[in-house]
């Protein structure tokens, strides 16, 4: 047997867990998983445990890596680099930033006062909530490595191009004036020891767990509903292959929703199981993670309405283009 597919099936997809829950539902609850009720119970328990395990492990690893890249350091790394390289580096550094959305505004202010081009800062801001190592590994677990790689790559491309457009439009004067007059600190304040990094990673797991556990339960609940109770025909009519507006609808529904990749995945998984096209699912996940009401409200405190509107428009249009492109290339998946 291929060792990699075994590792993928057991560690990332957790087939052992699926089998275990299968036994639990059939032999202890005495409900067949082929029935609606049994099927949704299986989906709910299996997905919840799987996401919680994957989330804890992934956040631990990523927070550990992240502790080497505090925003002050990111700022310095981005400092001297101009043009498209700056955007690419900005988007890449966005993948290893803190999860807490409340830190994105201080980061925005810090980057801007350090004199980083506005577009590079936006490349960073777009990629930061949307793409990271966790989303790559989680997507691999749920959908396989091909779709995961595609998600990460198009997410990064969107961040680079979005930032470049904002650069070209010269909107520097659409930042609230206080941002430019802010102070600046260096990153030599606290050098962390190895144990402190481990401690930081553990704290991060706890903090994120506390923050998102209910969102995950809601996500898995909706996923279980879609999986077993909502008729295939309803899903097909709203966001199925034959509805030309499917991507548009999926994107618009996703914009106000405030959830991270962990809560979004079970819904995406259930939609995938119902035969919804990859592009539509990518569009839904990207719009849920990249745009959310709370983060937009926070952004509105530091940038003026015109730039904010443009930011929303660029991301929305970008996501819709990505969605339709991938639906057109559906045969590849």
């Amino acid at each position: 047997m291929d060792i990699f597919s075994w590792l993928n099936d057991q560690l990332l997809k957790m087939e052992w867990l699926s089998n275990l829950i299968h036994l639990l539902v059939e032999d202890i609850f005495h409900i067949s998983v082929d029935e609606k009720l049994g099927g949704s119970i299986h989906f709910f328990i299996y997905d919840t445990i799987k996401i919680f395990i994957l989330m804890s492990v992934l956040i631990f690893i990523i927070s550990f890596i992240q502790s080497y890249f505090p925003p002050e350091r990111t700022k310095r790394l981005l400092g001297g680099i101009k043009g498209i390289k700056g955007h690419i580096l900005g988007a890449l550094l966005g993948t290893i930033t803190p999860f807490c959305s409340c830190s994105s505004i201080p980061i925005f202010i810090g980057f801007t006062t350090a004199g980083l081009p506005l577009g590079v800062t936006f490349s960073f801001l777009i990629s930061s909530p949307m793409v990271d190592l966790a989303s790559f590994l989680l997507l691999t677990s749920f959908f396989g490595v091909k779709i995961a790689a595609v998600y990460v790559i198009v997410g990064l491309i969107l961040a680079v191009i979005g930032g470049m457009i904002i650069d070209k439009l010269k909107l520097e004067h659409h930042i609230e004036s206080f941002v430019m007059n802010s102070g600046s600190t260096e990153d030599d304040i606290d050098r962390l020891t190895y144990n402190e990094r481990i401690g930081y990673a553990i704290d991060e797991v706890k903090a994120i767990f506390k923050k998102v556990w209910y969102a995950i339960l809601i996500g898995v609940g909706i996923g279980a509903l879609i999986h077993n109770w909502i008729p295939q025909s309803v899903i097909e009519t709203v966001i199925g292959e034959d509805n030309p507006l499917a991507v548009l609808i999926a994107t618009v529904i996703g914009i106000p929703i405030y959830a991270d990749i962990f809560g979004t995945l079970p819904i995406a998984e259930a939609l995938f199981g119902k035969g919804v096209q990859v592009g539509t699912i990518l569009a839904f996940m990207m719009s849920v993670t990249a745009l959310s009401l709370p983060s937009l409200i926070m952004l509105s405190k530091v940038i003026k309405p015109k730039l904010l509107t443009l930011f929303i428009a660029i991301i929305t249009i970008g996501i819709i283009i990505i969605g339709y492109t991938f639906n057109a290339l559906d045969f590849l998946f």
Partner: protein
Amino acid sequence: MTIKVLGPGCAKCKQLEKNVQVAVKELNQDITVEKVTDFQEIAQYGVMSTPALVVNEEVKVTGKVLKPDEIKQLLV
């Protein structure tokens, strides 16, 4: 002495504030604790990762939730 906790109100900022209160209580000295949640004010200190601690207008720690004992060491 004045100690300020900078943070827009995420879970970690609240935890740090709690720890500061504990530390201050245990030290039993004349220390004022202030909470700063306004982005504009946070930005003025040049802080990019919250929560952060400012002691006597000097940024001491950023992006970390210190335990009460560690806070005490900063204050003495």
